[in-house]
């Protein structure tokens, strides 16, 4: 058999395994390890891109990735891939990888050694430790995020660390905490196999989480009846699969949820038994509102939702009253199983915490909670937004395992686990993302206390809203120093003072945690190019340099290095020396240390070795009497969650009311902070596209994906276009009160915004829509709203099609 025939056979085997399901997959799957027939070595890894957490098998030959197979043994994707996952093996092979550290001298980035680069960072930190901020992302692996958190909180004694997940799911976090007392979804992706109805709240999973969405479409292909209701501000690919499309005005989601609640009460179709046993009611205080809010009684709560009649909701949301009644009718029917899905639409929202709370409240009030297929499920956009940012706690208020820096017991526990002197961890919450970059853009005398930011695995130059104000301005202020670790040149590296070349994905060991609490592990398979090195090593190397210079924070209570690591004989391994970094499995050491935090909020994790063997495990993972480790599908549910006692039914054991109850919140409808007017008459919504992942730094370097979607565009309605004198392909200036860019018009394109509304994707660094977007953010989550602001449009040039 020649190689081509062999490959065809492997491809058919993989496809057959995906068709036949897990049992057959066991027999047909490409065996991990090296194939003697073609010399390709196969190892498992989660996909590098979104938060679905698909597993792939990576084929490596001659130290290069040559093939990718969807892992048929993975519960998340069952062998399937999306177009990005299909190309993920090409992500490391863009032609312009960063391969050497670069320092800006006389305006130019010039090569320096790693040793010099580490010195530069150490100098900056020592000059003003309180002015140093670390900014990462949900693409940090779990050990990378853990090391960064320990470095800042345990070493520098500040909380000046945050992550770009602030920009994508912080409102989900605050809402989970406000509703259940603890972050992250209680349900899981198994819901897709059991639900009768899926409601997408401002969510487009057909493009953004396509493999996950295919699990639902797969059921239809088998002849099952599943209803899809799409609630959104523009028609998307998801709309094409929906039986019902409810087009709402921006912020209409608040009103829709309130309207459903109103009808459940008025019609008496709420789940009285569930509510009486398991729920309490809550609202914001009138003065100085907090995320904790204040308890209110059921009668007070009912009075507050009274005004949200279907007719009033129609007025506020634009969704017909009959559709509100339809939704309430579905929720009033306990025989159905209803899954609510959301992602950026509800999170990037100046009332994101509120609308998240209300959707949880709809499910709790109606008793559509805690059964397979029956509950609220938020999705994330990054591969480890949950595993790293939310669970490890790479946020300015957080500690690993769900702890909070404001909680003295959590600080004490962290100091104990890190062997730190008492009082090392600061109780002062650090600057969140928007505040960190605001301060970075101000002179010290203006309150700009942050003078150095180290960015790892993200691209704020492209993704921060109102970018000229919140990113570009800092580049004009003397004394502000930007350090960026990345794999490719980006808008952020181009603006940086120091650039560090990083290893990516399977060029290093790693662990991710996906949107359903599933922790995943992989091993390094190929070498990074040139002098590129692991982000985690970079952090440890800087910590060591500070230790060597006598920085007291880099020593634990016994005087040892903060990242003290020993071999099996107890001898210290100098992991700060990159030549020795892989002498031990640093990921395993850091993960095992991190595990010590995870029982605090019942986010228990298994030993590292269990993740080596598995295609991910959903926490809490607990050891059974027979020594095996058991994952959890549904939290707070008897028989599923190991921490819920028998006969409890449901138990919200982190309840903010300390009575094992979840909170059903009331929040009023509130209008968006900026609405179209005569000067800026259009709504602008921004977002992603199927082919590109976030700011496009990887996918724009994968030739087939770049060709499939080569540049950003402006979607507008076919009836708005002629009034503006715009035809398909014309160049249009999109301008807000903050900035402007020019884009090519696409009428009747992939997505279809309603009249008076336009959409622009943010993946294209040449067309930076975040010069235009709004920086206003939710008061609790501090997450900005990229989904709605006011713009005006003007044709500036004819396109080829005109």
């Amino acid at each position: 058999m020649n190689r081509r025939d062999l490959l065809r056979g492997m491809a058919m085997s993989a496809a057959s395994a995906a068709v036949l399901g897990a049992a057959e997959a066991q027999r047909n799957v490409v065996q991990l390890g090296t194939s003697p027939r073609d010399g390709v070595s196969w190892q498992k890894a989660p996909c590098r891109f979104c938060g679905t957490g698909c597993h792939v098998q990576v084929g490596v030959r001659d130290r290069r990735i040559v093939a990718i197979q969807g892992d048929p043994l993975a519960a998340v994707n069952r062998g399937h891939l999306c177009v990005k996952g299909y190309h993920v093996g090409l992500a490391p092979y863009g032609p312009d990888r960063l391969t050497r550290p670069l320092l800006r001298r006389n305006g130019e980035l010039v090569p320096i050694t790693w040793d010099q680069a580490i010195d530069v960072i150490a100098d900056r930190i020592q000059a003003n430790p309180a002015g140093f901020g670390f900014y990462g992302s949900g693409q940090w692996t779990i050990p990378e995020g853990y090391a960064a958190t320990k470095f800042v909180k345990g070493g520098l004694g500040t909380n000046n660390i945050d992550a770009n997940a602030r920009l994508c799911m912080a409102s989900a976090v605050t809402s989970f905490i406000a509703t259940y007392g603890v972050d992250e979804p209680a349900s899981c992706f198994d819901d897709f196999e059991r639900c009768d109805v899926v409601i997408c709240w401002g969510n487009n999973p057909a493009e953004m989480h396509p493999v996950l969405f295919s699990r639902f479409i797969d059921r239809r292909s088998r002849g099952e009846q599943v209803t899809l209701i799409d609630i959104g501000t523009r028609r998307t690919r998801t709309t094409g699969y929906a039986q019902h499309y409810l087009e709402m005005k921006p912020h209409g989601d608040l009103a829709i949820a309130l309207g459903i609640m109103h009808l459940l009460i008025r019609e008496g179709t709420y789940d009285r038994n569930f509510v009486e046993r398991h729920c309490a009611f809550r609202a914001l205080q009138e003065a100085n509102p907090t995320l904790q809010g204040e308890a209110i009684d059921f009668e007070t709560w009912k009075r507050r939702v009274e005004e949200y009649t279907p007719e009033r909701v129609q007025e506020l949301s634009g969704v017909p009253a009959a559709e509100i009644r339809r939704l309430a009718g579905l929720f009033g029917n306990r025989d159905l199983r209803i899954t609510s899905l959301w992602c950026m639409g509800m999170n990037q929202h100046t009332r994101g915490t509120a609308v998240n709370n209300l959707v949880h409240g709809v499910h709790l009030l109606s008793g559509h909670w805690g059964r397979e297929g029956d509950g609220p499920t938020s999705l994330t956009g990054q591969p480890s937004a949950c595993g790293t940012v939310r669970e490890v706690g790479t946020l300015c208020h957080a500690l690993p395992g769900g702890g909070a820096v404001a909680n003295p017991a959590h600080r004490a526990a962290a100091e104990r686990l890190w062997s730190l002197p008492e009082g090392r961890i600061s109780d002062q919450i650090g600057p969140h993302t928007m505040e960190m970059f605001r301060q970075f853009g101000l002179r010290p005398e203006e309150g700009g206390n942050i003078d150095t930011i180290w960015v790892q695995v993200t691209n704020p130059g492209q993704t921060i809203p109102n970018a000229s104000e919140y990113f570009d301005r800092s580049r004009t202020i003397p004394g502000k120093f930007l350090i960026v670790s990345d794999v490719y040149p980006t808008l952020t590296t181009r603006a940086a003072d120091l650039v560090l070349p990083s290893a990516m994905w399977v060029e290093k060991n790693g662990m991710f945690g996906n949107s359903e609490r599933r922790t995943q592990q992989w091993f390094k398979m190929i070498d990074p190019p040139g002098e590129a090195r692991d982000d985690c090593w970079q952090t440890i190397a800087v910590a060591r340099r500070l230790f060597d210079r006598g920085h007291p924070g880099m020593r634990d209570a016994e005087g040892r290095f903060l990242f003290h690591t020993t071999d099996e004989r107890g001898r210290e391994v100098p992991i700060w020396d990159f030549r020795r970094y892989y002498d031990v499995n640093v990921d395993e050491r850091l993960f095992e240390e991190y595990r010590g935090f995870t029982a605090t909020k019942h986010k228990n994790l298994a030993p590292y070795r269990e993740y080596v063997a598995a295609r991910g495990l959903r926490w809490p993972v607990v050891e059974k009497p027979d020594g095996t480790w058991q994952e959890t599908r549904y939290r707070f549910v008897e028989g599923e969650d190991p921490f819920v006692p028998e006969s409890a039914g449901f138990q919200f054991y982190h309840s903010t009311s300390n009575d094992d109850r979840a909170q059903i919140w009331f929040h009023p409808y509130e209008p968006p902070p900026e609405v179209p007017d005569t000067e800026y008459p259009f709504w602008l919504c921004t977002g992603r596209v199927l082919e590109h992942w976030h700011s496009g730094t990887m996918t724009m370097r994968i030739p087939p994906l770049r060709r499939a979607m080569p540049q950003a565009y402006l979607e507008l309605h076919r009836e708005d276009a002629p009034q503006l004198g715009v035809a398909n392909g014309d160049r249009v200036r999109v301008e807000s009160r903050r900035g402007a860019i020019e884009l090519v018009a696409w009428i009747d394109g992939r997505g279809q915004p309603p009249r008076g509304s336009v959409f622009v994707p943010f993946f294209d660094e040449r067309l930076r829509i975040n010069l235009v977007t709004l920086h206003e953010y939710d008061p609790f989550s501090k997450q900005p709203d990229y989904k709605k602001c006011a713009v005006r449009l003007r044709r500036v040039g004819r396109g080829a099609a005109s």
Partner: protein
Amino acid sequence: MPITGAVILLPTEEPARRALFERLERDPRVELGIEAAGRLALVVETETTRECTNLFDELSALEGVGAVLPVFHDFSDFHDARDAQAGPSDARSER
């Protein structure tokens, strides 16, 4: 040439199924595999990866097709082409 394994989520209506199979069977790039539970396995061999994704886009747009999901992708040709473009010394310099 890139070789891709994929799964099609099939239409439930018979006319749409028939049209899909007719389309696939007349395409020399496509080899059909097993069908079960509304899914069909296939292998596609194309000149370029782009040609393959174009084919998937076309199939996805056919009436009743739920999705076309790739499951296997061999792209060793990509490295061969890049090596040839870079020349023997450059091709090894970054490794």
